[in-house]
């Protein structure tokens, strides 16, 4: 009888442990990672949004296990406050200008934004892609086109959607987001010399109860398999890695 009870206890521990292992992680990730993360691992629970909004939610105690940001600024701020573990850079990206396939404003180059009347849509300044957009415009001497912005969105997906639906003449997005709507938009290249340094960072959230599993997930993302998945969706390797 005692042996049976002991076996039962061991079984209970094992099944409990297995259940903990199989429970999905809650991953807060930049909106631009939506397609690739879902394809890479559909079994986890995701919350996609602007990295700045996710940072705020984690600071306010949101139950996330992992935070993947489109800009080091957001992860590093949380790291300095011990709200996440040490962030690691896991991929990079580039910006592009997109216009609807119909291209009603006749935009053929980024410089056309200055020359022609356009309805431009970009992300807000606090959103990583919004910050990167402003960097591109400053580097190219085109900040004056900010006066043509008709809408500032909360994440890159909203910018992409507005242009794809023809609600704006042009918008700045990541190359990876442009690929996702390639049938509805035309991509206009931004010169390499004007590209900002887009780096994605990921970290385990300090309040997570599944730190080991979260760490293992990040390790898989950094592995050849994870990097191949990112590459398939148009993300770039980390320069110098």
């Amino acid at each position, binding site marked *: 009888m005692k042996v049976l009870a002991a076996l039962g206890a061991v079984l209970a521990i094992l099944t409990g442990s297995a259940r903990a292992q199989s429970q999905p992680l809650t991953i807060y990730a930049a909106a631009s990672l939506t397609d690739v993360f879902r394809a890479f691992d559909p079994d986890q629970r995701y919350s996609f949004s602007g990295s700045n909004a996710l940072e705020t939610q984690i600071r306010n105690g949101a139950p996330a296990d992992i935070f993947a940001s489109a800009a080091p600024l957001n992860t590093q701020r949380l790291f300095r406050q011990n709200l996440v573990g040490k962030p690691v850079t896991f991929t990079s990206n580039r910006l592009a200008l997109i216009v609807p396939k119909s291209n009603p404003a006749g935009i053929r180059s980024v410089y056309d934004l200055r020359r022609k009347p356009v309805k431009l849509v970009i992300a807000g300044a606090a959103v990583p892609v919004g910050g990167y957009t402003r960097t591109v415009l400053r580097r190219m001497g085109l900040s004056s086109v900010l006066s043509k912005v008709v809408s500032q969105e909360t994440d890159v997906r909203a910018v992409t959607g507005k242009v794809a639906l023809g609600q704006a003449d042009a918008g700045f997005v990541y190359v990876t987001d442009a690929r996702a709507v390639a049938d509805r938009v035309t991509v206009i*290249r931004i010169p390499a*010399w004007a590209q900002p340094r887009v780096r994605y960072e990921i970290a385990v959230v300090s309040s997570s109860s599944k730190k080991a599993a979260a760490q293992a997930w990040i390790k898989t993302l950094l592995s050849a398999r994870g990097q191949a998945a990112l590459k398939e969706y148009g993300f770039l390797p980390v320069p110098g890695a």
Partner: protein
Amino acid sequence: MDRRRFVLAALGAGSASVAAPWLGSAGAATEDDLAFANFGASTELLVRDFYAKAIDANLVGAQTTSALKHGRSAAGWHAKAQSDLLTSAGDVAPLPEDFDFEWPLRTFKTKAAMMAAGLAVLRALRGVYQTAAAMASEQSYRVLYASLAASVSQQIVALGGAAAAEPFPVALDIESASDAIERYLG
């Protein structure tokens, strides 16, 4: 600090301030000034990459190899001058790792192909420097860009010979020059 080291340090500080008067105006840099510096610093990194690969290719004689080495050194100094201007103005300077320099497959297989690629990039760069020398907001910037245009002209003649010398080199806006070099910047 001993006297010799003190004198050397003072000389170093003095030469830095004489050599880079444009840094004193960095706070007044306009957006167009920063665009010139961003384009120039990035393209100089590309030029330096060209010279490094051209030297490795070993397709030319000793005299031209010497010119390639001088060109590589000049490109490094030019990139640094403009990077310093950018950082002094609170901007982020480009780094070599920001680019995947892409030279067409046969660029470093023959001397003719190598020189043609180098001259194409240098002419685009000089064109922008000429425009910057006329358009930059501060006199110290205009002097800087006039110097850079002169230096790049020397490199063009060193690579292309007397036939590469032009009586009136064409000034270019950044957009046109950008189109000319974009294929190499990756």
